[in-house]
């Protein structure tokens, strides 16, 4: 790696106004990026510019503001679809977030296509948004959800997965990167095997799209779900990529304006892709801000983002494992995991740890991380989690380490 290619973290940090904030009088050390990420000035400015210069309803009005808003909204769709390597913008549906995306697939695809006796394959490391929708479909349809188990190091048991798909499941729904263990799954292979077994595949990209180069055309998945707020974009917006042939065969999800071609008292016909799945006024500002975030990330370069996080992770794994009483979960090799570090510290409860760290300006997450089945597997009620992004520095890791040692001291360990 050439030094000149390296990321200039200080330069990146300068783009994020919140990083100047003091918390309890201390420098903010924001390590809760798997929950949500901070926004660069350019994204905030994009929202301000929209609302103060060309706010209008998209698709509906032929006046200048309306045309500008529509052009920016559709421009954002192109940007975001290119960002994840979708083959065409009409395959990219704007939704509220990852959860809305998996539920769209649940209502508009699974409720129609999952039959009594079918199986839906998912894993023990999924976020609730990639579990609960399938439990509900399975219950309604008389199907069964199968959970692929994990190896000790938090990687998927691929043999269990292969057993599971031998039963020709209707759907295989897997995360590309665990929000607790950091485990990166080989979703290209998983999707290939799923397709060979006749299953439709869905990849939860909530923790991958923000942190590593993603190319859907190479992953070969049928559906891919992700959230803007986890990749420097606004809240309330995300995207579902869907393979065109599948989307075309699906009924709409929500009904209302924009998703129709014609409405009569006797019934309605549906609009073309992607509008068929976008009922009502969209989160126009959100989508435009999402595009701006994708542009910002592309300018840094997703390779660099990934490389920086791997470096942070290596540094963190090495240094934090030296802290007394630390149990770190997930794969040991930083190359095989995302920048998410879950752990427990001796008998300090994660919530107490979060409070103690907060006092020092350090924001981590504590709890079940919306992954209770994984907590059961780990046999802990909760974990602490530090998660990195491209604006985090080695100093942030050092601060965390000091905070952990301080907590140990307080708890008398």
């Amino acid at each position: 790696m050439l030094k000149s290619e390296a990321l200039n973290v200080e330069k990146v940090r300068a783009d994020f106004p919140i990083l100047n904030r003091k918390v309890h009088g201390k420098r903010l050390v924001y390590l809760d990026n798997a929950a949500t990420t901070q926004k660069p000035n350019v994204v905030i400015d994009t929202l301000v510019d929209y609302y103060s210069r060309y706010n209008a309803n998209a698709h509906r009005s032929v006046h200048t503001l309306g045309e500008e808003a529509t052009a920016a909204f559709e421009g954002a769709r192109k940007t975001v679809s290119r960002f994840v390597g979708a083959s065409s913008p009409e395959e990219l549906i704007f939704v509220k977030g990852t959860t809305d995306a998996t539920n769209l697939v649940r209502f508009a695809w699974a409720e129609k296509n999952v039959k009594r006796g079918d199986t839906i394959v998912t894993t023990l490391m999924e976020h609730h948004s990639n579990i609960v929708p399938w439990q509900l479909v399975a219950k309604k349809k008389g199907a069964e959800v199968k959970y692929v188990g994990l190896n000790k190091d938090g990687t998927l048991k691929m043999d269990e997965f292969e057993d599971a798909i031998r039963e020709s499941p209707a759907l295989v729904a897997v995360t590309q990167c665990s929000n607790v263990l950091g485990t990166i799954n080989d979703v290209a292979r998983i999707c290939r095997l799923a397709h060979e077994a006749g299953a439709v595949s869905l990849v939860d990209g909530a923790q991958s799209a923000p942190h590593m180069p993603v190319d859907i055309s190479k992953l070969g998945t049928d559906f891919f779900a992700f959230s803007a707020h986890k990749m420097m974009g606004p809240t309330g917006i995300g995207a579902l990529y869907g393979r065109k042939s599948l989307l075309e065969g699906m009924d709409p999800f929500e009904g209302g304006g924009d998703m129709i071609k014609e409405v009569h008292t006797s019934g309605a016909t549906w609009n073309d892709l992607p509008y068929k799945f976008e009922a009502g006024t969209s989160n126009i500002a959100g989508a435009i801000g999402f595009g701006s975030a994708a542009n910002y990330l592309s300018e840094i370069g997703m390779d660099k983002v990934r490389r920086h996080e791997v470096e942070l992770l290596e540094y963190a794994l090495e240094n934090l494992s030296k802290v007394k009483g630390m149990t770190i979960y997930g794969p040991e090799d930083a190359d095989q995991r995302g920048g998410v570090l879950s752990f427990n510290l001796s008998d300090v409860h994660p919530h107490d740890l979060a409070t103690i760290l907060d006092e020092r300006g350090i924001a981590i997450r504590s709890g079940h991380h919306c992954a209770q089945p994984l907590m059961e597997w780990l046999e802990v009620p909760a974990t602490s989690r530090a998660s990195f992004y491209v604006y985090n520095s080695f100093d942030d890791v050092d601060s965390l380490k000091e905070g952990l040692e301080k907590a140990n001291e307080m708890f008398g360990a």
Partner: protein
Amino acid sequence: MSSAEIYKEIILDYYRHPRNYGKLEKTDGSARETNPLCGDDVEIQFSVADGKFGEIRYSGKGCAISQASTSMLTELAKGKQVEWVKELSKEDVFKMLGNPELGPARVKCALLGMKALKVAAYGYLGSKFEENNGSDS
């Protein structure tokens, strides 16, 4: 007092050396409360003698704040009239903990034991009331 201080001064003592931890054989009242966000979980059990809390125990798991405040609360309640819970307020609990600065999420931890104690005590008082008025019906 900052939360770091409170951990040092009061909570940790109770967290390390829980008072009244355990279960009772025979109870006159009990209740369990959980906080789904953080997985805190406490159960309070008590017996009553002469309208007063007799034996009182708590069990469960969770953060130091929820466990310690529940433990302290059992000490505070012991020997008091069961009716006393009607007057027991958030502020009493905060005072008992030394008025720490707690954010809203941690406040829920601090009050979990009080919630369990109140539910248990009201349950007891309600069943007593029915017993006493049972002859009328």
